[in-house]
């Protein structure tokens, strides 16, 4: 029986490690603030899987209790982070983390986009919806970005 528990532990720890790794990669690679936030949550999920597996293995409630507190802290984090993201968006007009690179260290060179990729036509696909009602007037200024939230 102990061997089966060890196998279960190893399986769960491996899944937790992979989920944590994907969260780390997403957090350091993606530039959208909201996606970065989701990746931080993903790292918490990986740790939660690990803790629950250890809780089962050691027959101890401690791991599951810690996951409860992780969920509570994640909820707090979501409230704060999303409020901050909304405020940053209201200031910048975009969700790009590179926009806030003025806050970097003094000796770090600025990050400049070498090539801004153009959007391909097939990516600009909208869902096919049946037209209903009157078409609203399009504000030309708000086509590029929205100045207010």
């Amino acid at each position, binding site marked *: 029986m102990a061997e089966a528990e060890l196998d279960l532990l190893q399986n769960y720890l491996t899944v937790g490690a992979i989920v944590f790794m994907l969260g780390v990669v997403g957090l350091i690679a993606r530039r959208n603030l909201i996606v970065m936030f989701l990746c931080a949550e993903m790292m918490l999920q990986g740790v939660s899987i690990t803790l629950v597996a250890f809780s089962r293995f050691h027959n101890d409630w401690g791991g599951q*209790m810690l996951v409860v507190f992780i969920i509570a802290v*994640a909820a707090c984090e979501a409230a704060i982070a999303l409020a901050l993201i909304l405020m940053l968006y209201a200031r910048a007009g975009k969700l790009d983390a590179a926009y806030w690179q003025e806050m970097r260290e003094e000796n770090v060179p600025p990050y400049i986009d070498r090539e801004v990729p153009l959007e391909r036509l097939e*990516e600009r696909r909208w869902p096919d919806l049946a037209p209903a009602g009157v078409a609203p007037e399009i504000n030309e200024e708000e086509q590029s970005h929205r100045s207010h939230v």
Partner: protein
Amino acid sequence: MIAIATIPPHELPKWYEIVLTSPFAWAIGLVMVGLWLILPRGNARGRWFGALCGIVAIGLLAWHVPRLCGWLDESVFDGLAITVVVACGATISVRNPLYSAIWFGLALVGTAGLFLLIGAQFLSVATITVYAGAILVTVLFVIMLAQPEGHAYYDRLSWEALLSAVTGTILVGMMTSVIGHATSGAPLPGERTPGMALEIIHPRGSDRLASVSVAAAGIAEEDREAGILAEEHVAGFGRELLGRYLIAMQVAGALMLAALVGAMAIVVHGRRTDGRQAIRIGNM
């Protein structure tokens, strides 16, 4: 393959032969290539090849870890684990943040299933309720508010996709190999000595580097049935949460209150003042 065949048998294998013949090393390499290809890099070339590399890597890693006993457990676990990993990979790779959030929701559902499978029923429900029900919906709300068109150039770019992929590969390689070695010294079935020591075996298998004392390897099935796997799971959970962890729960409640007030303060303060003036006031 020719080089391996010509080496005399008494000679130790070189490092590149170990790497080339080990499915684990292939899995790690494929993880790196797959991650690099699926991250947004400005163009969409090679995305599907990257996804294929990732799936092959998942298969190799799944082959690397031991099977669970019972084909039903194994297949359910495999299905959930593959759902979680694929959904997480899609979360970090899709261009549209809206789809990112929806893929993350699928990952949360898979995680809840994994919790349910291992006997954490309350946490499974809490994950669905709090994460998928509250946090994810708030995220979707913010995306709709901030970026309804969903097409922005910074979603098609990454900071240093290759370096991020290498970092993640090193991280997951170290973690999975440590996990494999720490749990490879499996105790024999029926051996239930408390404080059993699991050996960390050197990759060559020749010398023992260290031993980790895992006190729980010898827990009898009856103890588990009375503890984590008890039929009245939520009752035991609540007894523990409101007994031993009562103070911690109160602190968590206070933290949530503070976070709520803080979130409102951020929004109200940001609204009242404008632009750089607000930043200056916030820094004072």
